[in-house]
């Protein structure tokens, strides 16, 4: 019985993240439009875009290799598996022991590795410029993320995300300096990883100013749909991560009844809406920075993560 409910929770989670991810992006876009007094597209527009892209034929560059065609699916699958392992509405995920937080970070790293390779595959300069900048950003964001993981793991005594979420929800962690540093650093990393302003602008249409979009410039049709959906999922993943570790309010515990799962799901949607709103607000209020200002931004996140870890090493009470 328990196993069945666990499987059910895991399955629902996988579908839920997949279904909610475009909605979250649509919501953020809508809020951004409203904040600058535009009407904005419907919050369901990303679904329509995806469906349209799925039905279109793929225009493949003449020089594209098999790697170029495989990458969208590999990238999407890696992100989806990672997103399925981050607790959203409940912590009792059946497969949470498959990959802990370090492995989730590495899974996202795999997705980016293949995407960066695909950027190099066609042999144009846009793909190259996108890939080279993406790996530069990743080279700083990934260690920062790992140090943030260290921070959380040292506080919670585990790198298992469900255990961390349980710990944060149940025990009186209190205010922790190191966790404060970790959350600021995590937000900075999340902005960079999801190609949001101020690091990258997902909405511009000039290839030279973009990082992520320049890298996937050659993609079209269903391939592009997979990459877009992967990007939506990644945003959802980071928000879920922040929510389950730093705001585990009302999250359903292992073995809880259907009611608490329903409450957890409601709370989760509320958290997503709040985070989406804050993200839109932040993006409207700031400007994109120069590419070579990004290393300083991420360097600061790295330093914060390191500082938090250092404090925890020095004394567990920080």
């Amino acid at each position, binding site marked *: 019985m328990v196993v069945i409910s666990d499987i059910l929770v895991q399955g629902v989670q996988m579908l839920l993240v997949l279904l909610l991810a475009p909605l979250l992006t649509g919501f953020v876009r809508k809020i951004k439009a409203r904040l600058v007094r535009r009407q904005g597209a419907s919050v369901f527009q990303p679904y329509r875009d995806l469906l349209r892209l799925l039905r279109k034929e793929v225009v493949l560059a003449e020089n594209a290799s098999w790697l170029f065609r495989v990458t969208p699916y590999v990238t999407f699958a890696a992100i989806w598996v990672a997103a399925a392992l981050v607790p959203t509405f409940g912590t009792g995920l059946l497969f949470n*022991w498959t990959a802990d937080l370090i492995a989730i970070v590495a899974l996202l790293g795999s997705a980016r590795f293949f995407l960066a390779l695909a950027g190099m595959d066609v042999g144009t300069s846009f793909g190259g410029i996108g890939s080279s900048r993406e790996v530069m950003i990743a080279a700083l964001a990934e260690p920062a993320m790992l140090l943030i993981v260290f921070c959380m*793991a040292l506080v919670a005594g585990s790198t298992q995300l469900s255990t961390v979420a349980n710990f944060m929800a149940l025990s009186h962690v209190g205010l922790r300096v190191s966790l404060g540093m970790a959350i600021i650093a995590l937000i900075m990393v999340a902005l960079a990883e999801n190609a949001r302003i101020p690091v990258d602008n997902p909405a511009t249409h000039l290839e030279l100013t973009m990082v992520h979009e320049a890298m996937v410039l050659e993609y079209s049709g269903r391939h592009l749909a997979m990459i877009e959906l992967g990007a939506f999922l990644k945003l959802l993943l980071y928000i879920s991560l922040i929510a389950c570790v730093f705001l585990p309010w009302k999250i359903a515990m292992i073995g809880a009844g259907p009611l608490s799962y329903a409450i957890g799901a409601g709370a989760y949607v509320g958290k997503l809406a709040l985070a989406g709103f804050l993200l839109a607000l932040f993006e409207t209020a700031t400007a994109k920075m120069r590419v070579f200002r990004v290393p300083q931004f991420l360097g600061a996140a790295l330093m914060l993560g390191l500082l938090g870890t250092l404090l925890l090493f020095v004394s567990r009470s920080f």
Partner: protein
Amino acid sequence: MSPVALQMTCVAALLGSAVLAIVLSRLGSATAVVYGATLVVSLIALIGSIRWLLGGTGGATDLTLPIGLPWLGAHFRLDALASFFLVVVNLGGASASLYGLGYGRHEHAPHRVLPFFPAFLAGMNLVVLADDAFSYLLCWEFMSLASWALVMAHHREPGNAKAGYIYLVMASFGTLALLLAFGLLAGPAGDYGFTAIRAAHHTPYATTLVLILMLLGAGSKAGLVPLHVWLPLAHPAAPSHVSALMSGVMTKVAIYGFIRVIFDLLGQPTWPASVVVLFLGGITAVMGILYAMMEKDLKRLLAYSTIENIGVIFASLGLAMAFQANGLKLAAALAFTAALFHVLNHSFFKSLLFFGAGAVLTSTGERNMEKLGGLIHRMPFTSFVVLVGCVAISALPPFNGFVSEWLMFQAVLQSPELPQWALKIMVPAVGALLALAAALAAACFVKAYGVAFLGRPRGKSAETAQEVDRFSLAAMFILAALCLLAGILPGFVIDALSPVTIEILGGRMPIQSNEPWLSIAPIAESRSSYNGLLVMVFITLSASLVVFFIHRFASRAIRSGPAWGCGFSDATPAAQYSGDSFAQPIRRVFGTMVFHARDHVDMPAPGDTRPARLRIELHDLIWEGIYQPIADAIGYSSERLNRLQFLTIRRYLSLVFATLVTLLLVLAIWS
């Protein structure tokens, strides 16, 4: 036959093949005979050592041969540590031999390679088996010289002579350090057997000195920064399968020496020593990968990446030392297992990548990646396995590189228990350095693979490349399969390593093969666990599911068209991103500090028709700051001392006389 006798017989067979190679060297079939022989012998030795490691065989483990010093003889011994490193050595040897069966056919001077290849393998086996200081040093020197001969195989190619010279100097320096270290270990009594050294008591002063000397001796062979300078010159200069052996295996033999002396012979490590090892490991990892990132020669890039991996291994060994010094057995076993696992992994994927570089070299004649490109279309199999190697070395799941890095990070997370302040500060800093190195490694291998294998060909030779022969491909596919297997079934590897940790540290990690679904959990499942198999299954399943649904219900139409160039189509392949331009962002972020990198742009005035030029200025600060001054000082003093060569006989005699009197005076004053 006892296990140690089996190993020694294999070594003898290898030496025999070396002699055979000299005899046959002018024959056409020599290549096939010699590599076939080394393949068979290495496989036998490999099976023997694996069986010993898994505890399948009994029998004597000691062997004394009546050679060497008359009162000592040559002692050889097989224990768990040695058998693990024998697995690494012989696996590398077997795969290199298999690769050599195909690759060796393109060798234009086989008589310079064939005799030394089995000798080199024999040397590495002997170092691991040696059980007294004298045979150890002798075998070490034999291994160094054999590899030096292989580095010099293509001595007429530009730069190789210099590489060989620097290698020789650094190798003699390293052996000198080892000689002194063993001298200290043996003490005034001068008993050179490892058993006696292990039993002896060592003063703290001697222990510190031995640590420094081992870091110099084994560190210079392994490529620890700043003693790494010879490595990126010498490893690529050798034929590719030998490069694979040098990078993938010989550096591990150096690590074996370090572990043997520091963990085994010296007894309990002290925590200040671990701070030094941790620091050197962290710096080596980041510096190595930054050097690799700046490199455009494919094989040198791989050699620099070896330095990075050596840094990673040394950092985990440092962690193990710190835990062991504080009596935290379980954590020490975790860190030590991570180090050994990484030793094994690195031997897999570095050999694979060097084989790949060799395949590219065979079919295009190019090592410079700026002249390659688009090989994925013309060498599909090689490209596939090299991609596997790149993913594995970038520490990405579900391959093996990730597992050892994961274990290492878990060990880092155990270390707040350490009481010493220096360690409390050093460990998080090293953790950050290792995380940085891992991320940079991924960037570096995106660059290497993206520039050499993807895109469009940048030169004629890349356009006409051909897939390589079946032997080379077989060797690469086997290694790629091993990378995947070790990545998805890490529990078995960890369990196989437990005899080594029990022998060296007296503790072990929990048994992993009992974990459900073949996952690994270093401490407890609630703390951390990872299951590479399921990760791979999940990714494969969800990707196939998505592909199926999309192709079934959405669209599967494909149209081919020219790449989008903003209306400026038909750009030449030279307009692609090159390796240097790919590295530019990272060069700007890290290189300005580490290499004093500057970009000089020479832009002609409007109307001027000469081409614009971009020149990148990089400084190897370690070479310029440490080695160049030493070389200059030696040059200067030999210039001065040169005058002594043109004296009269009377003056020479008076010099001798003065020396004699001085020595007598010293003796008179001293005693």
